[in-house]
């Protein structure tokens, strides 16, 4: 279920390189003025490549200004297995990651408004342990679902994840069931749930809440897949098609409702939510 198989090189290639003035596009290598890059919502003005966003950048782009109120922010990882590997102890690396990112976990949750429609929202951040799904991530995603359930407002999750967090062992696997239990209750009460899949959404996250939106929206060109490319290549012993495990491939195979460019994403979400007629 975890998904860390993309080679470092290809991961690195996708990440825009930033210095003080320029951003180098992760796809076409164009050098873009930092200001232009952010004005275009971190989408390359040259080639349309959708760069990754931090959770707060995403929230800033999607929610009406000054409407976001963060919730469950204190919830953070513990170290249930006392997990240690070559890089050190999980506990220490969590601490380092928290210091580096300013985040407590791989997801930021809260409430806000999209063109005046109140929503409960969960936004994953790939910088925190590859956006992996740990116990605290699952707890926050469930609590945000429960908030939507109790207040009868739509729920939106932006996924960006390498999958389950193996440093929490089977407990991380259980987060797939836990989060889906929250989504299931929304279904039962007919409360909208929209899943937005961004680069990358893979492993245990694509195989749980990210795939069961009333409407599944993906950003163009995002890496979306279940098993790792290398694992699949070993299994089938042949090269995979080029667009394999992209938003476009998932649309073609019936799993994505629509692919939406970042600049139209907020309006599209509003369009979808306004069709909720209760």
């Amino acid at each position, binding site marked *: 279920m975890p998904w860390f198989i993309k080679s470092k090189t290809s991961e690195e290639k996708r990440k825009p390189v930033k210095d003080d003035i320029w951003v180098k596009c992760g796809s076409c290598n164009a050098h873009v003025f930092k200001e232009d890059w952010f004005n275009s919502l971190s989408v390359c003005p040259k080639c349309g490549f959708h760069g990754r966003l931090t959770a707060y950048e995403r929230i800033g782009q999607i929610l009406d200004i000054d409407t976001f109120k963060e919730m469950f922010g204190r919830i953070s990882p513990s170290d249930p297995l006392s997990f240690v590997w070559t890089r050190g102890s999980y506990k220490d690396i969590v601490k380092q990651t928290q210091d580096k990112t300013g985040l407590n976990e791989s997801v930021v949750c809260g409430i806000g408004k999209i063109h005046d429609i109140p929503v409960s929202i969960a936004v994953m951040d790939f910088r925190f342990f590859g956006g992996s799904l740990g116990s605290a991530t699952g707890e926050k995603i469930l609590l945000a679902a429960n908030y939507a359930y109790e207040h009868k407002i739509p729920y939106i999750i932006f996924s960006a994840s390498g999958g389950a967090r193996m440093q929490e062992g089977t*407990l991380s696997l259980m987060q797939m069931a*836990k989060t889906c239990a929250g989504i299931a209750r929304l279904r039962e009460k007919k409360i909208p749930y929209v899943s937005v899949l961004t680069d990358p959404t893979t492993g245990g996250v694509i195989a*749980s809440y990210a795939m069961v939106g009333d409407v599944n929206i993906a950003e163009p060109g995002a890496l979306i897949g279940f098993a790792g490319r290398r694992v699949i290549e070993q299994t*089938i012993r042949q090269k995979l098609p080029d667009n394999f495990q992209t938003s476009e491939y998932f649309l073609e195979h019936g799993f994505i409702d629509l692919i939406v460019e970042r600049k139209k994403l907020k309006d599209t979400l509003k369009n979808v939510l306004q069709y909720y007629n209760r």
Partner: protein
Amino acid sequence: MNDYFDFEKSIAEMEKMIEKLKSISPDQNHYNDEIAELEKKCALQKQELYGNLTAWQTVQIARHPKRPVLLDYISLVFSDFVELHGDRSFGDDQALIGGFATIGKRRVMLIGHNKGKNVDENIKRNFGQAKPEGYRKALRLMRLAEKYNLPVLCFIDTQGAYPGIEGEERGQPEAIATNLTEMARLEVPIIALITGEGGSGGALAIGVGDSVLMMSHSVYSVISPEGCASILWRDASFSPQAAEALKPTAQSLLALKVIDEIIPEPLGGAHRNYEQTSQEIKRVLLKHLKRLSAFSTSKLLKLRFEKYSAMGLFSD
């Protein structure tokens, strides 16, 4: 029947010796005393060994090629099995099978992975690695169980969902995610039993139970030790370390409240005594069936939601 692992070497030698002594004079029993002593010694050593298996040793036993598979349990634990085929939309996956079954006097819907025990069977059963149509068949049968008011029993034994291109193409993640979501609200009791390998999402996709049980030598993990070792240690030979770190054994998972009960296996593993293993399974399943059937549907769903809401450990 007995294939031995490296760590079972001394036991293997003792057992061979006992066999040999017995075969020398089968009628007159010249070596009765020696045999008795050896057997006692062997039993002690077994107790010692199997009571203190490492995680990696447990993984090996869980994967034993002679370990009972679902078809064995169907004949030993259940009666009146009516296999129901197909997902009603694409195919019939032989890696994940199911149908009506009777246990004791209780009628249930039985669903489970089925590994093969030889090359032909493993090709037919795809080593117990189900494709999306397998998980969709499982969901169809659960819905049927709901209509017929039958509890659902899921026997889990898989390395994981099939990771080939067909899986991606036809929606392995969608099938798993849908099962997790639908099982959360299925209006009949669900009991999940990990009989051998509980491999990641492919296991969990039929594992959202009101009771989750494990055989004492089974494992349940988010990733295989090999996979974890090659990612985190960058070297698959660190699998024993990864196994230890992942804590995939029944004892660890009971402590972490991932599972509710452990079903004891015969000394040395389920493959050493199918009959005894099956009796234990039957006893425990009937106990849980009885317990769960006492709840109203709304109570059942409330308890299930609370159970999964409580999964995980974090700081707040």
